[in-house]
């Protein structure tokens, strides 16, 4: 286990280094000058120099990147801003907000969105998938399968506004999507996120229904499932302890990766429902040429994906004793 962790964490660090370096290079690969953002209409070379100095981008690219990396571990002094403590991801080019604080500030929104919808899509997706697998070939299965096919081909940017129109604007059944911190008002947190949860879950549920069904249909015909029945285990026991156990591995794997992605921000969902999460932050930083923010978002979301992968592998090893962590 320790070996596994050390090995994977080292791998993760290398991955993140590569991602950040590539982002850095790609950012400058297109001819743009971020210092222009903070320069007035009549922009003199002198002012541009001042801005580059303020932003910490007056050095050659590799040196800049090195400073950026260094700041994560030892912090950095910004002219006019004082010291930025490690781990320091710098300040936004646009509004000079500290990157790390901004990302963490957005994170609860994204996490609430991800976790809430995950609860919904796991319950409905796996539940429906199980029913469909048990009732394989029967009307219920056919309905569930075709419904999930339809749902999975739907897109947030279509379903989202339709749901908003029907559930919020027209019928006033549900609240206008918004984010209130859970600690502040759990009720408002819940009602504000309900529509996004449902819409996001609708599309994801379909994937999990199909995955659960196909996995279970496969494991239900496994020899060890038959053995369990031959031993006199009840159908329920056989289903959950044997068939489902076998089906879980791939589902957990996909879920882990999905969660990593969702925690990195569901851009379209956040945009559709005007939720200020990581995804929207990423989009804005790209549009605004905001390199520090973009890098910060990239690193943190990439970390989620990388960590999710490690967790998934560890979970898989727990589910399936045949897998060894090394």
């Amino acid at each position, binding site marked *: 286990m320790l070996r596994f962790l050390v090995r994977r964490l080292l791998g993760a660090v290398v991955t993140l280094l590569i991602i950040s370096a590539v982002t850095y290079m790609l950012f400058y690969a297109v001819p743009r000058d971020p210092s222009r953002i903070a320069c007035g209409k009549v922009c003199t070379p*002198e002012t541009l120099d001042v801005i580059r100095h303020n932003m910490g981008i007056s050095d050659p690219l590799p040196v800049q990147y090195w400073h950026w990396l260094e700041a994560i571990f030892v912090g950095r002094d910004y002219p006019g801003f004082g010291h930025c403590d490690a781990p320091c991801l710098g300040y936004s080019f646009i509004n*000079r907000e500290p990157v790390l604080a901004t990302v963490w500030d957005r994170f609860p929104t994204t996490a609430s969105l991800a976790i809430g919808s995950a609860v919904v899509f796991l319950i409905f997706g796996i539940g429906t998938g199980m029913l469909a697998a048990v009732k394989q070939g029967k009307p219920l299965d056919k309905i569930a399968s075709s419904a999930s096919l339809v749902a999975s081909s739907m897109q947030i940017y279509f379903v989202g506004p339709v749901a908003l129109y029907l559930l919020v604007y027209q019928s006033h059944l549900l609240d206008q999507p918004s984010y209130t911190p859970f600690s502040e008002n759990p009720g408002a947190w819940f009602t504000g996120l309900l529509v996004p949860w449902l819409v996001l879950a609708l599309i994801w549920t379909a994937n999990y229904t199909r995955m659960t069904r196909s996995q279970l249909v496969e494991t239900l015909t496994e020899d060890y499932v038959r053995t369990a029945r031959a031993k006199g285990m009840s159908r329920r026991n056989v289903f959950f302890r044997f068939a489902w156990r076998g089906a879980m591995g791939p589902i957990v794997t996909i879920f882990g990766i999905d969660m990593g992605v969702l925690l990195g921000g569901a851009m379209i969902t956040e945009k*559709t429902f005007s939720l200020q999460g990581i995804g929207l932050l990423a*989009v804005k930083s790209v*549009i605004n040429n905001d390199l520090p923010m973009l890098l910060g978002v990239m690193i943190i979301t990439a970390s989620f994906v990388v960590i999710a992968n490690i967790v998934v592998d560890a979970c898989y090893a727990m589910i399936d004793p045949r897998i060894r962590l090394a």
Partner: protein
Amino acid sequence: MSFSRRNFLIATGVAAASSTVLSACSSGNSSSTGTGKQEAAKAHTTTVKIGTAADSQGPAPEVSGARKGGKVYLLNDDDFSHLDPQRVYYAWNSLAVIVLARTLTGYKVGDDGSMTLVGDLATDTGTMKDGGKTWSFTLKDGVKWEDGSDVTVDDVRHGFERAFANFITEGAVYAQTWLTGTQEYRKSYPGPFKGNKHLKSITTSGKTITFHLSEARPDFNYVVAMHSYAPNPVKHDTKQNYDKKPFSNGPYKVKSHQTDKSMVLVRNEHWDPKTDPIRNAYPDEFDFTFGIEAETAADRLIADSGNDQYAVSWRTVPQAKVQQATAKAKDRLFEDLSSGTSVYWINQTRVTDIKVREAIIKAWPTAGIRSIQGGTHRGDYATGIMSPLVAGYKSQDVWGKLKNPAGDPAAAKAVLKKAGKLGTKVVYAYQQDPINAKVKVVVENALKAAGFDVVTKGIDSTTWYDQIGKVDNEYDIYWGGWSADWPTGYSVFQPLFDSHNVVDQGTNYCHLKNPDVDAAIKAATAETDQDKANAMWAALDKQVTELGAFIPDVYMKRLYLHGSKLGNVKMDPNFDGCMLYKMYVKA
């Protein structure tokens, strides 16, 4: 004043993401707002005049039917990039800052949209001496900061001086240049934070502040209306952090501000309406929510339920929502000219033959482009570069664009043939977004029909200005927008056509280097009689248009929605959004 380039720079980005702003409206239903053809432009030809001391006295004229109180909700996508007045240049920021930061002078906006320059903090619009090299302003009594202390001449001076500081790079630089006589103004004065020295060119005496400029600036009283030159409280200057929580001397103050999420403005009890000729300030509170996409905002405003009845957005109604909005919320739509003029620059360094330029302009499919970009909602056909919202504007249709907005490739071809230039290669650069991709096709077809060999080059919207701003760029024709920093001709022609501005990332996008134009700019700038000056600027508008520096496109318009419980929601002619200080909450 509004800042076109930044507006457009943002506009390009937003367009890339959600194709909203640039392509404001659909070409369809325009019956509610568009008055068709050019009447609109004529109707909007605003009189910009300079007011008297009497005009400068508060309070602002009552809006009929208005009442005090209530809360207004703002549904916006972007937060304000800056609230520190010295760092404000974007019109977007000014829309909010105007109720927080008063300036020496300001614009009193009439019910008809007319603008009168009046003293805001100052008793009048200033006193000019030495042909415009010396300007004095005297502060009114009773103008106060949010802590109840007086706004002093020291505060006014501090505002000008901190504009030299290293962390202030975003604001206007006119005054800095004129107060030091050099573009590299930081070298001659490092700002007030190093050694606590003051600028020698600003003197104070009692309640009067005097500016000694290095060159004659007869329209300096317009310049000091810019938020970049608002006063800053010497005792409460938190430098870099001032941006997050500015100290108000306007009718409202910042109660809370969560970057990119929300901002609440509440009444500043120390603001005395009797000193303010500009702002009515009816509502008690403004609640801003950021991160609401223009589409969502439009949906909510159309639905008009709950608090959204008290809401308004500073983002235009997206093209896709115009029809629905017109059908369901006709009485809550408002449309007006924005300060921006849209043109297509012709690169003078590359397209040197006037006959070739003439052919391009004649062939140009202005009507076709406009219909792609939203029809009448996009704007009124332009005749020159000077907006109808700039003092002295005259409609002078040099190229017959009003008579034939569709363009005339056949006539263009004849011009080209006569000049022996058939088959000339022209490179058209465009922003890579869905709307501009359609525009490209129309342009390409028109130019081909006129006998040009057309090359088109797509450019990523986020780097648009970096690309076309290079003097040695390899494009012949590229789009550009401009709005004046203040509504006199100087703010249009000096940046755009003065030959000194043909530098990398300079503002002379068409690279016009014409001694006659330079001389005309100089003459009009020095003219102390503003009426004469305005006529000179209008003549210059005709001159640069005739030179084929650009292809006139449209005087841009903006279309907005508001909730049913808001009254007197009107466009600010300077900042391209509705005025917070004129609207009221209905009973």
